[in-house]
């Protein structure tokens, strides 16, 4: 039906970005258009490429820690987590239980902050200005909590090989509990404002359907995959840290459209809060950092470590050569694979729907460009 509407005189190219609010950063999408229909959206990457992988192999492994937070700056702690766990696996470093608990608590808080930012930004893409104000209001509390203990608000460098930089205190525990209580009270507001909003539903329902097969062909992971009904979460499927000790669910959608991806993230926030709550209840005493040699030797051979970041599977792949400098460090970031399906997902749709799809994919461009 739509095919017949594509007539040559109406065809043109349109540059969306690299300075476009709904590309969430410096991303350019070159659109081949026919009137208001998108024929072929091609993302153009690399505007903020910094070659993190080269930096990773040109300094001792400790020196790469700050870089890990500068890829996905919205949800940086899981990036810290993946990297320290990789080196700990490679060098056989033990981590005290309390440190692992603190890592899980802070990572999950960061995940909630990331989802809140996404929620606001996505709605802003769709033309609703109010939700981002609510989202940032809640997110601000998390940033304050994390700032007290990590010393930064965004680009954290809190974890260390063998533990964390410093212990959490009573103030942190109290503030976190108060935040959990607060956010649970806010669900009603979000539900009334967004989830049940007919204008939002019309913009998200049955738009940008990702099928399970498509997810396999492109390597789509995270909430984008779970929206399509596949309960795949590295925290459950390839358990790391102390995640197996906590009881939480992996929310999934049915159709795999924008609305499902929205619902998965909203429900994931509650699951993250549950993990934080359980971890605070059972927080063990003890040291938060084990003794680690100043110079960490990375034995010859390769090693992989995957964690569940807010956007999907983050894998660090390291090749050691017996020195403390990695011979090769590959970083597999989730948004890279998630965005690569855009040409297929955005073929023959209306331009406003493309904005909705890109918003629902939860892209962070510095992570894609690395």
């Amino acid at each position, binding site marked *: 039906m739509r095919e017949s509407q594509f007539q040559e005189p109406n065809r043109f190219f349109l540059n969306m970005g690299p300075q476009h609010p709904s590309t969430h950063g410096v991303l350019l999408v070159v659109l081949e258009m026919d009137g208001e229909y998108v024929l072929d959206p091609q993302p153009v*990457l*690399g505007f903020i*490429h910094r*070659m993190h*992988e*080269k930096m990773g*192999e040109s300094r001792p492994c400790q020196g790469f820690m700050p870089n890990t937070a500068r890829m996905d700056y919205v949800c940086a702690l899981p990036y810290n987590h993946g990297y320290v766990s*990789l080196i700990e*696996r490679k060098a056989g470093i033990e981590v005290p239980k309390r440190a692992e608990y603190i890592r899980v608590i802070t990572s999950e808080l960061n995940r909630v902050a990331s989802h809140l930012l996404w929620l606001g930004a996505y709605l802003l893409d769709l033309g609703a200005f109010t939700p981002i104000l609510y989202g940032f209001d809640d997110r601000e509390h998390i940033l304050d909590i994390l700032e007290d203990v990590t010393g930064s608000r965004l680009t954290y460098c809190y974890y260390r090989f063998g533990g964390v930089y410093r212990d959490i205190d009573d103030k942190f525990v109290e503030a976190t509990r108060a935040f959990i209580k607060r956010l649970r009270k806010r669900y009603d507001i979000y539900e009334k404002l967004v989830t049940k909003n007919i204008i939002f539903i019309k913009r998200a329902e049955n738009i940008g359907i990702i099928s399970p097969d498509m*997810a*396999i*062909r*492109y*390597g*789509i*992971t995270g909430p984008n*995959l779970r929206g399509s009904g*596949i309960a*795949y979460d590295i925290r459950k*499927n*390839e358990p790391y840290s102390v995640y197996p000790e906590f009881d939480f669910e992996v929310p999934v959608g049915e159709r795999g459209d924008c609305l499902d991806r929205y619902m998965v993230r909203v429900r994931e926030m509650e699951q993250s809060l549950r993990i934080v709550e359980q971890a605070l209840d059972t927080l063990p005493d003890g040291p938060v950092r084990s003794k680690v040699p100043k110079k960490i030797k990375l034995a*010859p*051979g*390769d*090693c*992989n*470590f*995957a964690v569940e970041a807010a956007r999907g*599977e983050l*894998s660090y*792949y390291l*090749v*050691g*050569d*017996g020195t403390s400098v990695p*011979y*090769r460090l*590959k970083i*597999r970031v989730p948004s*890279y*694979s998630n965005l*690569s*399906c855009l040409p*297929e997902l955005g073929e023959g749709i209306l331009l406003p729907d493309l904005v909705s799809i890109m918003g629902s994919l939860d892209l962070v461009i510095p992570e894609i*460009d*690395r």
Partner: protein
Amino acid sequence: MMGTYEDFKTNVMNLGGDVTETDFHQRGYHLEVVLTVDTVRKFAQTAYDHGFYLVFVTGIHVLPETVEGVKTSGLEMVYQFATFDRLCRVKARVSVPEDMTVPSICHIYQGANWHERETRDFYGIRFSDHPNLEPLLLCEEDKDFHPLLKEEKKLKSFEEVSWPAQRPDMVDIQTETSSDL
């Protein structure tokens, strides 16, 4: 369509891949597969048929060797796959031949398109039958600049950056690991 873990191993071995089980707690993946340029596509098809998704594609630059009078390129391709249904992570490795060309797998895994373009950017490895092998992360002017190629003096041989050859007494531990997959 999807078979068991054992089926997958058998199928990969049948197409000529060299399969080794590895210690997941040490390496973070369960199977190591060594392929040649002729078996890359067949392997990708087998992985796809068994429901594996593509995690990443990348390269490693090591010291070129001279095997039977022929100098190798010194580049190794690494593919990683995992699956949504069970805990199984697979690393596949291919030595890049002297002509620096490896078959593209992006007709099977469309997601490989960008990974292969990135590998061309960083290492200069070319992929035959790739629909659009243009620079992705680097700019057009840097088309012939490959940042992850190491300087001659920093290169190490492939053995120096690999796990030591497996001892026969390790086999028991590995079988144990594979049974709980």
